[in-house]
């Protein structure tokens, strides 16, 4: 861990908005600029879940800009159940040795000891992930203390900005991992966009109230409204299975995508991985996407949204829609109603 990051001087620093500072210290590692910069260099790319060296090589050859080292892909975690934890370090090392692109790994929410271990292993980014079993029902990891950058999931602007205030250098939509159904990722991407537009439309006085409703620091909300986007890189994740899914989310304005079970749970992983990697760059060209989508074999089988009802607690006690409008229309929201958010 870096002593510098721990001093807390590294609040959110946005690209091209900060001045050069600090003359004396020569080499500074773990600064927020360097952590957020890592995510900035992943933009326009696809990050693939892999469970061994062979899959990691397939992802690298396909053109992935990073891989996520896992023991089980989300679809298997869903099916098999049980407590899902950090991946065996041996497996992570095997994957790190197989490829030259960045390797990420997941820690349970709030499990800072797992995160410390992942940092010691030298992974390039840590995903504090809801795909694994939650380790701390009340708190997320204080990510400012780490040299390694973190990516965190979010379903709305409030969650995204809270994670950023805890030090996340990158945000991804939560989506519904392991289902092959993109509906939740779309909902989360659209929700974040809509709430940013609402913030942009507010005058400075109204923003204070909106910050309270979203339960976020006013400075971060102000910065978001000013920039008209999240102040860090934002990827889509959860249920993305085809080149068309990639295009859909990219057109909704995300900076890149994560693909979990979508590749290695399909019938032709190599071909699909390659097509999806190309789709991130060609997302705006339907004719190219048509070619890329051709003859990819079967996509992952998937569990559609309407068959999942009751399978697990979905969005906490109140629905997503209500939550947004309650926050937006200044209706009274009391504390503790969000599910570990």
């Amino acid at each position: 861990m870096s002593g510098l990051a721990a001093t807390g001087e590294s609040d959110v620093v946005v690209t091209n908005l900060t001045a050069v500072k600090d003359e004396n210290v020569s080499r500074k590692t773990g600064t927020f600029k360097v952590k957020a910069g890592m995510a900035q260099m992943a933009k326009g790319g696809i990050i693939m879940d892999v469970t061994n060296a062979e899959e990691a090589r397939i992802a690298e050859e396909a053109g992935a800009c990073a891989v996520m080292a896992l023991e089980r892909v989300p679809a298997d975690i869903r099916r098999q159940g049980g407590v899902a934890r950090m991946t065996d370090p041996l497996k992570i090392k095997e994957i790190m040795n197989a490829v030259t692109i960045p390797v990420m790994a997941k820690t349970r929410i709030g499990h800072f000891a797992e995160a410390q271990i992942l940092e010691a292993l030298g992974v390039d980014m840590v995903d504090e992930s809801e795909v694994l079993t939650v380790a701390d029902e009340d708190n997320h990891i204080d990510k400012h203390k780490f040299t390694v950058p973190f990516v965190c999931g979010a379903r709305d602007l409030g969650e995204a900005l809270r994670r950023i205030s805890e030090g996340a250098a990158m945000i991804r939509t939560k989506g519904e991992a392991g289902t092959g159904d993109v509906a939740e990722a779309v909902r989360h991407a659209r929700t974040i966009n809509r709430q940013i537009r609402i913030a942009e439309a507010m005058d400075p006085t109204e923003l204070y109230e909106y910050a309270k409703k979203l339960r976020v620091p006013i400075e971060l909300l102000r910065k978001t409204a000013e920039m008209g986007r999240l102040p860090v890189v934002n990827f889509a994740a959860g249920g993305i299975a085809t080149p068309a899914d990639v295009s859909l989310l990219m057109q909704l304005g995300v900076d890149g995508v994560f693909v979990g079970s979508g590749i290695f749970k399909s019938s032709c992983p190599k071909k699909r991985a390659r097509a999806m990697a190309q789709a991130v760059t060609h997302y705006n060209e339907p004719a190219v996407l048509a070619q890329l989508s051709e003859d990819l074999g079967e996509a992952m089988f998937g569990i559609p949204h309407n068959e999942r009802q009751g399978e697990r607690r979905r969005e906490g006690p109140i629905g997503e829609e209500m939550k947004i409008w309650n926050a937006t229309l200044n209706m009274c929201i009391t504390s503790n109603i969000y599910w570990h958010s």
Partner: protein
Amino acid sequence: MEASSIRVGILEIQGGFSEHRTAILKAAETLGMKEKIEILSVRKAADISPALSGLIIPGGESTTMGLFISRNNMASSLQEWIQDEKHITWGTCAGLIMLANETEKQKIGGQPLIGGLDIVVSRNYFGRQVNSFQEKVKIMDKSLFSEANIPDHFEGVFIRAPAVVKVTSPKVTTLAVLSQSCSDNPGVIVAVRQKNILGTAFHPELTEDLRWHSYFLKMIASVQVD
């Protein structure tokens, strides 16, 4: 007569390309250039046109960019375009790797590159992301000093960055090094120029300091005059 315009292409395959767009436009404004700057995105071979005066290859993953370039048959048009000395090319971080004629620590089986600079580059020279850092680099070329003739430094942002480990031709000029404290070590080379090609291992587009973007625009402007 309306002001002429300068077209700068940015290779938008993957990586930090929008930051360059912002920084170039800011730099052009600061320089008060009389030509209008137009920024075009380069995503396919047809986008690499003689109408472009400059091209930026941004930071990102060199393997991702290289594979995309070869799969979309862009390599030969890029190489041809870059070799024309009227065309100014700048690669940052992964872009520097793409432009190097030799690269160490490539992925298994090697990776497709563009080439152009007579240098040997080592990928991830400083280590993994936890070793990424900010440090002042020492500028060797006085046209990059913030005030004329005052030796100067630039806040280098190095993210899983490469470094130039060897220069293989006298045509290559070193523009910046990471200064080491001991005098017998000349420092790690982190920015070079070979005629019309510029390469930096760090990311000026992630800072407020526009000197490198201005330098690049001035390279373009000086070719236009000739």
